[in-house]
């Protein structure tokens, strides 16, 4: 197998606490060596001729990014996305691994469906795909889905995401049973009675506009209930797309009590608020669930990101066709894309203004999510998978939905100018995405 030497870049590997000039040698699908600049080139050239040297002066080399919350829509909704187009979008956005939710058609509630997804990912051979199985059969929130079979086929967690696990007993049993497999239960925390027919955050802007609201309370109540169940069961719980100030406080307190709780935040909840929905004239590109919240929620989420309460940034990449998204705001489906925008918008609007250190952002996109789901990777320590993302911090571009590799175009970030993004993505030692600017 061809070896790759990534030379002259700035290596940032938060898992090892490294931020400095180092060269990286990838061989046999793993990270072979990390060394000071120049040393490896001599040794590697001497060792054989199947070596590609990529000069990365001025670029950042980091572990391959991991998005633990995406919807790949296959099987069943291939008009929105397929595993193949989803992983193509992933690697273009710098992601070398994704974990995909179970709300496919049929739902991923069996080892068989898990295998279908795993095989589709093998055929696509771009990013790694880790399926998340359903908590309940058919996502119906009634009976436990066969976790053992799904884990045996490759599932790394369970979630009914898109729907909350409303039934408290089912959540209790899932938290208990999942411990046999060492996997977390991922919750889309929302009390459906409180959210009702809401379509945007309930607050000043919903009151002003008359649009039906989803109160932050819908999330808070469910998180509070779940944390009691976690305390009782000792289970592993991961809160998906945390969006409210109160939820950040609840999770922070739970962590300090030693509960096995993790959580993620999305770029859109960190960067946008309910005001943007109004300013966009109720364009359904701004409709997702949980909804864009109030500014005080956004600020609390950012604070939780900085203080370590948040374990991972995840995009909740949720493709929908343009035909579906052009419906009236109230009727259009919830969800927006994220794989091809997450890194760029976070660099531009979290790192550049100084809200978040670059190394912290990389942590939240690499070893943070890897720890949440117990995934390989997330570090470039020798012996780790050769999954690498190279970032050009100076590259200026405009987010252009028409050129997305995803099958869908639904993003609120279209037209945003950004500086910085992935220019080279390597999975298992193989280059799977490369901008023309990065020559070997």
């Amino acid at each position, binding site marked *: 197998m061809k070896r790759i030497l990534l030379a002259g870049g700035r290596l940032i590997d938060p898992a090892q606490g490294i931020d400095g000039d180092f060269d990286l040698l990838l061989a046999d699908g793993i990270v072979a060596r990390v060394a000071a600049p120049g040393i490896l080139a001599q040794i590697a050239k001497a060792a054989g001729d199947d070596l590609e040297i990529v000069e990365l002066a001025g670029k950042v080399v980091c572990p391959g990014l991991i998005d633990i919350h995406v919807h790949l829509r296959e099987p069943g909704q291939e008009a929105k996305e397929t595993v193949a187009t989803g992983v193509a979008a992933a690697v273009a956005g710098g992601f070398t691994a994704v974990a995909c939710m179970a709300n496919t058609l049929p739902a991923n509630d069996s080892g068989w469906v898990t295998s279908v997804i795993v095989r589709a990912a093998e055929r696509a051979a771009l990013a790694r795909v880790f399926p998340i199985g359903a908590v309940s059969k058919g996502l119906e929130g009634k009976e436990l889905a066969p976790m053992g079979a799904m884990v045996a086929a490759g599932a790394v967690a369970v979630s009914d995401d898109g729907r909350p696990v409303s039934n408290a007993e089912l959540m209790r049993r899932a938290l208990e049973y999942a411990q046999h497999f060492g996997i977390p239960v991922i919750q889309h925390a929302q009390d459906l009675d409180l959210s009702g027919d809401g379509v945007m955050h*309930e*607050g*000043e802007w*919903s*009151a*002003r*506009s*008359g*649009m*039906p*609201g989803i109160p932050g309370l819908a999330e808070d109540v469910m998180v509070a209930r779940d944390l009691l169940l976690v305390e009782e069961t000792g289970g592993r719980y991961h809160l998906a797309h945390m969006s409210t100030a109160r939820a950040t406080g609840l999770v922070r307190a739970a962590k300090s009590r030693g509960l096995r709780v993790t959580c993620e935040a999305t770029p859109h909840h960190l960067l946008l608020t309910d005001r943007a929905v*109004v*300013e*966009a*004239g*109720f364009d359904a590109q701004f409709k997702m669930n949980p909804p864009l919240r109030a500014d005080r929620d956004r600020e609390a989420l950012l604070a939780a990101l900085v203080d370590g309460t948040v374990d991972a940034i995840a995009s909740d990449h949720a493709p929908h066709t343009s*035909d579906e998204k*052009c*419906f*009236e*705001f*109230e*009727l259009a489906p919830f969800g927006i894309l994220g794989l091809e925008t997450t890194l760029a918008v976070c660099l531009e609007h979290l790192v550049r203004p100084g809200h978040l250190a670059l190394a912290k952002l990389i942590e939240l996109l690499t070893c943070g999510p890897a720890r949440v789901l117990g995934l390989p990777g997330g570090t470039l320590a020798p012996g780790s998978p050769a999954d690498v993302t190279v970032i050009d911090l100076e590259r200026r571009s405009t987010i252009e939905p028409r050129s997305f590799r995803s099958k869908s175009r639904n993003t609120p970030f279209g037209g945003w100018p950004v500086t910085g993004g992935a220019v080279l993505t390597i999975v298992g030692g193989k280059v799977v995405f490369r901008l023309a600017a990065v020559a070997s």
Partner: protein
Amino acid sequence: MMVPEDRLEARSSDRSAETESIAWRRKDLLGIAELSVAEIELILATAESFTEVAHRAVKKVPTLRGKTVVNLFFEPSTRTRVSFEIAAQRLSADVVNFSTSGSSQSKGETLRDTTHNIASMFPDFVVVRHAHHGVPAMLARELACGVVNAGDGSHEHPTQALLDALTIRRRKGRIAGLTVALVGDIAHSRVARSNIHLLTRLGAHVRVAGPRTMVPAAIASLGVEVCYTIEEAVAGADVIVMLRLQLERQRSVLFPSLGEYAALFGLNPARLALASPDAIVLHPGPMNRGVEITSEVADGPHSAILEQVGQGVAVRMAVLYLLASARRPSA
């Protein structure tokens, strides 16, 4: 874009000089939120001049001759549709009524398809009512013709607020400085929202009242005083606007029974007596007699409810007239 401007500051309604100087430039009337004081005054002044048409022997002016108005009602409505129809006919326009219950989606047709179908028939104006917020704005973006919002979801019902304002001004001579109480389901009422925008902008002091389940606290950000008893809201009020309880839309979790609603928030003679002695009572109709309003009040000397209906035609004539003026090549 429908970003409400800051309208907390009270303004004088005496803007006649300004009114004369401005020309109408909008293609559409989508809501009160985006209108300036001068634009509101222009509509009211124009409507005032149309009120006399109703008393002519021949109730017609030739302004919109050869123009087509499509009344596109996705939600059941009788009086608003008929009011728009009469307004268009008095302006000599041709009127087509297209009513369908349910959304376009329920027919398997996207709103965009419906819109393009309408566009292909080249109407000059589309008057639209829809159960979902923002549909008139979507149509306005897609259609070259003028679009009038005749009520969208819980968002806005601009011509209702304008006819309320015209009624108030004809009875009271002014709007600035009046105390106006809006009572009922503030959270889900498009009439309330348009009235709040309009009346606060013209300098009225607006109180809203209703059960706490129907009055979001955040509504105060629109510059209104929030009350939770009808007595508090109507005390000393110059104008009382009773909102229709949308029986067909209510979820039982918001209030326990019609009887209890009537007992706590219905306007009866005893509560009316708390208001200013020359207070007027408005209701957008259709009324639920015995629920939000008793017959003694609805049919009594303070009621201006039937006048509202008459002003509705004048206001809608004014809106169609002004939208047409914006579309004419500049004179």
